[in-house]
Each structure stands twice: as C-alpha cells, then as structure tokens.
C-alpha cells in the first residue's frame, strides 16, 4: 500500500447521546509519532472523541481508522491503543507490578518476558523500587506513573491520555509534562492528549485541535493556534486577549481597518474574507500592546486610556487600563529592568496611551 497512513484518522465522526450531540462532524488526521492535543472547555466533546478512538463508544455516524484500518465496532480490547485514565483506574487488589503486567498477562506472554518488560516499564517511570506496593500506598504522582507504565508496556500504536495530569498539583504537573513529552519522543508513539489546560497543550503538543460544543474549531501547531487564531473563541480560550468590536472601513493588502462605535480607527491583519461594511472584531494579546506616557504616539492603533489597576507578578507587570468608551483593556509589560524605583511602575490614575503594531492584531469574525 503506497498511500500514506495516519496513526488515527477521523472521518466525519458524530456522536449523539439521547438527543444531545457530543461530537459534531469531526474530521482529523493524526500523524505517526505526533503529540496531538484535544483542547477545549469541559463538555466540548474532547473526552467523547477519545473514548470513541479507544473503542468505549461507537460513533453515531462517521468512521475511525487506526493505522489505516477501519475500526467500525471493533471492541476496545482488540484495538492497538491504550488509555491513561483521568482517575488512573489502577486495580487496587493488585500490586504495582501486577498492574503493569496486566496487558501482557492478557496477551499470554511468557512469564520471563513479562518480568523483564515490567522491570523496564517501571524503570522508565522511575518506580523500580515500588513494584511490590499496592496502588493505594503510592502518591498521586506515582499512581499516575503506574498508569502510564501499565499502558505503555503494551507498546500501542497510539496512547490516549484523558486529562492525566488534572489531579496533580502545579509543580508536579509541570514535571510530568516534561517527562511525558520526553517519553513520547523517546518511544516515538503517537500520543493523543485530552486537556482543558491551554498552557499544558501549548507546552507539550506538536499540534492542537481546539474544540467547542462538539466541533473542532481549529487545528494547528501551538504557535499557529496562539498567534493566528481563526475565531474569537480560540483567541479567547488560548491565552488572554483584548477584543475591539467595529465595522470594516477598508481592506488593503490584508490589512483591515475597523471603526469602533466611538469613532476610533484600528487596523489589524485580516483572518477571514471581509468587505467594507461588515462587522468584525480586532483581537490583540496583552503582551503585544505597549503603554506610552506623555506625548501621543503617531500612527494607527492608538488609544488614550487611564490606568485602573496594576498587578506586579514578578516577571511581568499586568496593567488594566480603561479606554475612553469605558471598556477595560489588558496590557502586560515584561519587567526587563531590575528596580525598586516606584516611578518605573505605573500607578492607578496615570493617563497613558495604548498602542500596538498592525501585524500584532488580527481581524476575526464577530
């Protein structure tokens, strides 16, 4: 067969539960060895999608292919995928080693091989000393590693991870993110990772599919998703974003000019086909906005504003200013100079101008 196969291919997959649609007409192609994230708020259908790939649910319509093979109603135990569950779902009556060996045991692999591979799997997740313990005797992070080892020991084509880090505290979560990524790169196994944490998705993924209400809104690399969101929802869900509503006045070489209801003109990069008179929204991220004191700067995208609140968070200072029409606007300034001089920081009530470069703002559908 010469046609390139995908680790997982979803072809117009829809899932309905008693009148409500959990997944709507999703088509995705996930490459071999890719770290692919399904990102979205709770209830967006990402977990249902994962469960359909695992074989716990069957699509109401559409087809799922794993390594080019049509799954149809192939039961979960006959699919070459393994799952790391959100609650880990370890078997409490078995030791850690027995948990890890379970998949091989089911495949009737001989005892000596099982022992070697269990040892390797436990080494991989740094739990070699814990084989005889029961899952209950381990910390949350260690249980997480057991779940990972139990899935990976089967050497699946695809590993499915359902919010596996959600129950861990922040520091451990960051460690596990790096560890998961390095394990994935080392083994070259395709990971499909479900999460509602955008930072987690950005850190780990080769590509991300952003989902809302059962639909995939955008698929792309982390930089594409963050820097070139296609819809307002994506821009808003991934990171922070300021939005300014307006009417399209002019379109020129991809630069779109909007006029706000207050009569101010703003210019951004057009992300969808627009014509004069259309309603649209300008999106600009807070770290891409500059604050200027004193003289009004020249050029486009300049607003007079009053500083309302200042939050110093160490690496950045996060400033909320109020625009003339009363709407709040977020600005993040990197603290590039180390100083205790209060004059170097903004205080509430300061009159300022906010400004940003045209290429740093996008014009999206309202």
């Amino acid at each position, binding site marked *: 067969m010469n046609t390139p196969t995908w680790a997982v291919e979803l072809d117009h997959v829809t899932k309905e539960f008693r009148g409500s649609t959990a997944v709507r007409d999703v088509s995705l192609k996930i490459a071999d060895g890719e770290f692919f994230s399904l990102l979205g708020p709770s209830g967006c259908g990402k977990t249902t999608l994962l469960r359909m790939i*695992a*074989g*716990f649910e069957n699509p109401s319509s559409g087809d799922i292919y794993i390594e080019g093979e049509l799954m149809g109603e192939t*039961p*979960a*135990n*006959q699919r070459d*995928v*393994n*799952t790391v*569950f959100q*609650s880990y*779902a*370890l*078997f*409490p*009556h*078995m030791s850690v080693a*027995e948990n890890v*060996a*379970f*998949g*091989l*045991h*089911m*495949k009737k692999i001989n*005892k000596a091989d*099982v*022992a070697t591979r269990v040892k390797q799997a436990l080494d991989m997740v740094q739990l070699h000393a814990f084989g005889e313990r029961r899952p209950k005797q381990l910390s949350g992070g260690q249980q997480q590693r057991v779940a990972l080892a*139990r*899935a990976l020991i*089967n050497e699946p084509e695809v590993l499915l991870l359902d919010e596996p880090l959600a129950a861990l505290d922040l520091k451990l979560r960051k460690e596990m993110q790096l560890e998961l990524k390095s394990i994935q790169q080392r083994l070259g196994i395709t990971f499909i990772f479900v999460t509602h944490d955008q930072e987690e998705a950005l850190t780990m993924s080769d590509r991300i599919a952003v989902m809302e209400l059962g639909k995939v809104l955008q698929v792309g690399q982390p930089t594409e998703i963050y820097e070139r969101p296609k819809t307002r929802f994506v821009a808003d869900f991934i990171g922070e974003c300021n939005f300014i509503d307006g009417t399209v006045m002019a379109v020129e070489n991809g630069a779109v000019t909007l006029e706000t209801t207050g009569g101010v003109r703003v210019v951004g990069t057009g992300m969808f086909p627009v014509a004069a008179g259309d309603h649209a929204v300008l999106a600009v991220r807070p770290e891409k906005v500059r604050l200027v004191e004193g003289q009004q700067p020249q050029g486009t995208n300049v607003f007079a504003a009053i500083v309302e609140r200042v939050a110093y968070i160490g690496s950045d200072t996060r400033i909320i200013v109020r625009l003339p029409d009363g709407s709040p606007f977020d600005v993040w300034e990197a603290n590039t100079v180390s100083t205790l001089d209060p004059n170097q920081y903004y205080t509430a009530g300061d009159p300022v101008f906010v400004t940003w470069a045209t290429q740093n703002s996008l014009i999206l559908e309202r």
Partner: protein
Amino acid sequence: MYNARTEQRRAWLQASPALIWLGFFFLAPLVLILIYSFQGRADDGTVLWNWSLANYQKLFADGAFWRTLWLSTWIALVVTAITLVVSYPLAFFMATRSPKRRGLLVLAVMIPFWTNFLVRIYAWKVLLGNNGVVNRFLDQFDLGPLQMINNPSAVIMALIYGELPYMILPLYAALERFDWVQLEAARDLGAGRFQTFWHVLLPQTLPGITAGSILVFVPTVGTFAVSDILGGTSVNMVGNTLSLQFGSASNWAYGSAISMIFMLLLLGAILLYFKATREVNDGENPG
C-alpha cells in the same frame, strides 16, 4: 496529660454494654450447653447431673446422625451455590442502575422480610402440596398429580427462595463500591469480557461473596423449619435431630453434645473458607 491507663479504662467502659449483652445472651448459654453435654438424661426427661463423656461416645457411633449431617451439608452447599449464581447477576444489575433506581431495587429485595418467614414457607406448601394450587390446576387437564413436596428438592428450592436476600445484599454492597472505570481499563488492556470479570471484578467483590455465602450457608445447614414443613419425614437435617432431642425426645444432654460438635465443625468449615478466599485474593498474580 495523656494517660494510657485512663484511656484503656474508658475504652472498656464504652464497650461494656456490648460485652454484657454478648456475655449474657451468647457466652452464658454456650457454656450452659457445654456443661449439659457432659450430663445424662433422667427417666422423667430432665437433665441428670452426672459428668461423663457418654454423650460424645454415643454421638460418634451414631450412624444416623452422620448421615443427617452429610445431607444437611450437601443441601446447604447446593443452596449456597445456587443463590450465589442467581444473586451475582442480579446484584450487578442493581449496582449499575441510577442511584434512585438502586434504592427502589434494594427495597424490593427486602419486601419479603415484611412477612413472617414461616408463613412464606407454608405458602409454598399451599402452592406445591399434593392438594395444592398447582396440582389442582393440573387436574383440570387430567395431568398429575405431581409429587412436588416431601423431597430434598422442595427443601432446597424453598431455602433458596428464603435466603436470596441474604446473598443479594452483601453482593450488592460490594458491587456498589466498585470503581467501574476499572472495567474499561481492563478492556483497554486487552482483557475479554470473561477475563475482565475473572481478574478484576470477581477478586474485588470476593468479600461480598464470602459474607453472603456464610450468611446463607450457616442458617441453611442448621435449618429445621423448612425441612420439617416441605421435607416431611423424608428430609432429616441436623436441625431436625436437634429439635427432636430438645423436644419430644427430651434428651437435652445428648442434644447439647450434638450442638457442640455441630458448632465446632461449622466453625472449622468457616475458618477454612475464610482462609481459602483470602488465598484466592492474594494469589491474584498475572503471569
């Protein structure tokens, strides 16, 4: 300041109502029966105070008693096995319903307790007796009559009917605690339906199986009412022998000796059973 002795005294004090209860209603009668078992029978049927091992010598030579014990054990094993096989799927069904439905189903299981047990057993006699409802119905078609009572099958059936709730409820309690995601995890790891049941669900519900089996086996092996009512003279169980000795035969001393031996054997069997189920549980070892 923490004082271990005061603490200990308080613990005893807190436990004392239970200890007094157990001492008065459990330990004292047991000791009494133990003492009786070494006495004899006076001609008027009262206990003759005369310490000896005569009752035990008589018991070990009493072939009829051992046949009774064998029949009781066999009936109780069959009853326990069938109730277990019937109850497990039912408890599984109950435990996998919505919480509201579960409450209703548990209530439904307990409804028979609202009627006296003996009345319900007599109801079976009314149904299955030689002039019973079923035979009169068959008579309309010139069929039968079928001999459905006064045999071990009738006793076994009525015992299963009566003991079912005692098996269902502990099984249900064990299944309700089960974390169902584990079934998906097992399937995900390549286990078929039977393997999932055998390696994941069964070992974790074993405490419920143990509890239910003992709750069914112990009353069943010692029953006398059901075998009396539905077994007639053809089903003689240990309970019937005991009720004979303490009743019309008026040989309390011999009855006490039977009680003691029966109790010891039962205790030994239960301990063995506990040990075996624990070993099965610990022996869960893939590879």
